[in-house]
């Protein structure tokens, strides 16, 4: 049986318990088809499990969320939740585990381009890039402050972005294998995370520091900045070659870029299906957006999952079936990643997300394939959300929000997040000036079992206001 033959139920957002019931109806032979690190088919590499399994292993937040009820979405969740196992397994099968930090996208394209060594097993060799940055949601998913407390012990306390969880994860040596190499980008990005990198550098044997310069738009300055980034990347390549013993060829990089672009195009289409036609909820859409960073440590299988999601979305669109009502309130969201619980809450109250800016534009923009590979990757970095002005970031969002006729915008930040403190008001003011629609600005609270009443009330009032303007 192929997953093509599997019939998804009528599209809906379902609870954790409903998902468990639904999982029982999926045939075993279908479950057996999905493996990470393809093309291997070993029993150890299955990842399609019900959400219950991950909740038992600590992802308790899942019990409070709502999910899309398609098989593709279940694949997504199984795969994303399985990343820790996958990273440890990568080490076991001979891959080099490379932590890339602070640039959210471009460095992973380079690392993932490093092919397996000649003569290595079909599962082994090559590199796996992962972003410890992404462990920042672990405290939310686990409803536990363990990683945040560890970070505080190490000197990064409460008045800092939740990305400090990555420091706790490094210190605990159990959330991912100790990396074979750490590559850390810093510069025109995020200070909180730069601080995390600084302390991580004191824990690991070596860090390759990569400069992330400020975006410049004047032609001559732009070229200068691009050249500078290319040279930073050349140093990274040299390190990767030393690490793996593999000469990284232009062909390898081109293949890596093609793969990344394919995934980014799929992601663009999925966003269009979700934001334009309501065929997917915001939560899965956000998870897909973030998948462009590094493919959750297995870009090949992740791409297959996103293809499955897109096909599911296209089929829903063709059948005129949506998950969210098309007359839902159309809301845009600007934030570091939104709290999954908040995304669900907004949708439960008759709204849907139609535009998003999650500070990862550099992982979503297509890499120019007509120029030398490192230059193409450098240019993709320079489209980054955070490395230009707040105005530029707001402009990017305004274009998307206008295109989708957003009726209101939520700007959520993080207390102590260095760029949030400076950006939120500038971005909010600019959006208000350009779109003349209600703006709600608030900070995401620390990991909790529920949304605090104050935030709930503010969201409710905001949605009432948006509705009243219809």
């Amino acid at each position, binding site marked *: 049986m192929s997953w093509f033959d599997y019939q998804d139920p009528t599209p809906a957002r379902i609870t954790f318990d409903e998902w468990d019931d639904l999982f029982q109806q999926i045939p075993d032979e279908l479950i057996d088809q999905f493996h990470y690190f393809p093309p291997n088919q070993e029993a150890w590499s299955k990842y399609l499990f019900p959400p219950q399994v991950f909740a038992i292993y600590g992802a308790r937040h899942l019990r409070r969320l709502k999910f899309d009820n398609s098989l593709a979405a279940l694949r997504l969740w199984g795969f994303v939740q399985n990343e820790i196992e996958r990273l440890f397994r990568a080490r076991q099968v001979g891959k080099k585990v490379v932590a890339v930090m602070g640039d959210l996208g471009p460095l992973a394209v380079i690392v993932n381009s490093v092919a397996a060594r000649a003569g290595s097993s079909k599962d082994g060799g090559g590199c796996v890039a992962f972003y410890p940055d992404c462990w920042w949601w672990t405290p939310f998913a686990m409803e536990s402050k363990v990683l945040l407390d560890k970070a505080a012990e190490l000197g990064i306390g409460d008045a800092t972005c939740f990305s400090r969880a990555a420091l706790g994860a490094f210190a605990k040596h159990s959330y991912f294998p100790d990396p074979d190499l750490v590559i850390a980008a810093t510069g025109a990005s995020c200070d909180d995370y730069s601080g995390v990198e600084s302390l991580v550098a004191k824990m690991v044997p070596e860090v390759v520091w990569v400069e992330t310069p400020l975006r410049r738009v004047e032609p001559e300055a732009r070229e200068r900045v691009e050249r500078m980034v290319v040279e930073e990347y050349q140093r990274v390549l040299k390190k990767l070659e030393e690490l793996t013993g593999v000469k990284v060829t232009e062909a390898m990089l081109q293949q890596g870029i093609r793969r990344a672009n394919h995934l980014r195009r799929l992601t663009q289409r999925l966003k269009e299906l979700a934001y334009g036609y309501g065929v997917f909820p915001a939560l899965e859409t956000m998870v897909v957006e973030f998948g462009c960073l590094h493919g959750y440590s297995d870009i090949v299988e992740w791409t297959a999952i996103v293809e499955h999601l897109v096909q599911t979305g296209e089929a829903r669109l063709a059948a005129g079936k949506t998950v969210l009502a098309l007359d839902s309130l159309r809301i845009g969201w600007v934030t570091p990643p939104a709290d999954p619980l908040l995304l669900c809450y907004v949708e439960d109250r008759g709204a849907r997300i139609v535009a998003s800016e999650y500070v990862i534009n550099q992982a979503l923009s297509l890499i120019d394939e007509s120029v030398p590979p490192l230059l193409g990757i450098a240019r993709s970095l320079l489209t980054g959300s955070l490395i230009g002005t707040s105005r530029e970031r707001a402009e990017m969002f305004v274009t998307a929000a206008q295109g989708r006729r957003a009726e209101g915008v939520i700007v959520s930040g993080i*207390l102590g997040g260095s760029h949030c403190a400076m950006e939120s008001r500038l971005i909010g003011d600019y959006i208000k000036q350009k779109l003349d629609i209600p703006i709600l600005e608030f900070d995401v609270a620390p990991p909790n079992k529920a949304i605090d009443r104050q935030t709930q009330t503010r969201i409710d009032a905001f949605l009432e206001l948006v509705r009243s303007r219809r």
Partner: protein
Amino acid sequence: MAILDSARLESLRLERFEELTGLKAQGKKVVGYFCLYAPVEIVQAAGAIPVRLARADYGSALAGERFLRADACPFCKASLGKFVQDPLYQLVDGVVIVNTCDMMRRLPEALTTNFSVPVFLLYLPRTSELFPNRLQGFQAGLSDLKAWLGGLTGQEWQEERLLEAIDEANQLRRKLQELDQTRAEMPPKISGGELFDIVALATLLPPKRMLNLLNDLLAVLRKPAEAMNKNRARLLLTGSILSEEDRTLIEIVEEKADIVADTVCTGSRWFNEEITVAEEPFAGLARFYFSRTPCACRRPNTALFEYIKQQVAARKVQGIVSKSLLYCDAYRFEVKQLRQEVGLPVLEVDGDYSQVNRQQLRTRVEAFLEMLR
């Protein structure tokens, strides 16, 4: 006894403010800057007058909350507030900002949006390893700054003025180093607070006038003076930028101890190194500013810790006071590392410019000093 009492300081500041007002009326341009990575020599060579904008207090920080969130850097908030409240800030024709941290990098937008002040954002690589591409990128930024300043002043660039400015700046730094050495003596001849005040003055007065003043002060210090208490604890002050109006901690500490060294950017890091002009001036400037004893925000920042350790050894430091501004990630995050690396007791203080905890702070400082006995 203070070598430069507060009344004299205030009159020097006022005189200079009036002088700047007059110069501005004659068409001279005043360029403000916040950070020690801003190359004042280029500003001077372009025919503008550099003035460091490092005043910040609680009132101005509150005023700044009209433009930024409450959890923004207190110095950034106060800087915006000063543009509302402080005549010196209102005098500037342009501002040079260096992207030392996330908050500073975003300050230009807040300034231009709310005050229509022209701003040049100089990109200093946050990575501190001296690779050619980084140095070239930074040097190109200095050339852009030169062009921007030319547009502001309307003056023709003269290379000899740059060499002159570099020479003056080096003389000034050397003289301040000489003055700073008197802090290292046993007992110190000047207090930490006095040194910070003098450095602040050096960022306001023209270099030649400041050199004359420093010569006078050093002459006073060379005369025999009444013996000071030798048995006070010798401390090093480190941490975030310490504004000219934020003297509470220093005052409390120096009631019972001596701040004989510091690594603060408004203190000794402003003058602790000199520019080598053995190469083309812009290349020399780029190398100097890129390689200065790093701010904690540079990566890696090991050279900052080396500098601290060197100061501790050379000046027989017994304890460290680390003052971080609220939300100043660059310095707050490194305190634990500081304890480990230096192996001395560290008093960690953080806050904004509020005075409400003054007595609490006094109690903490006194307890810390008792521990050092």
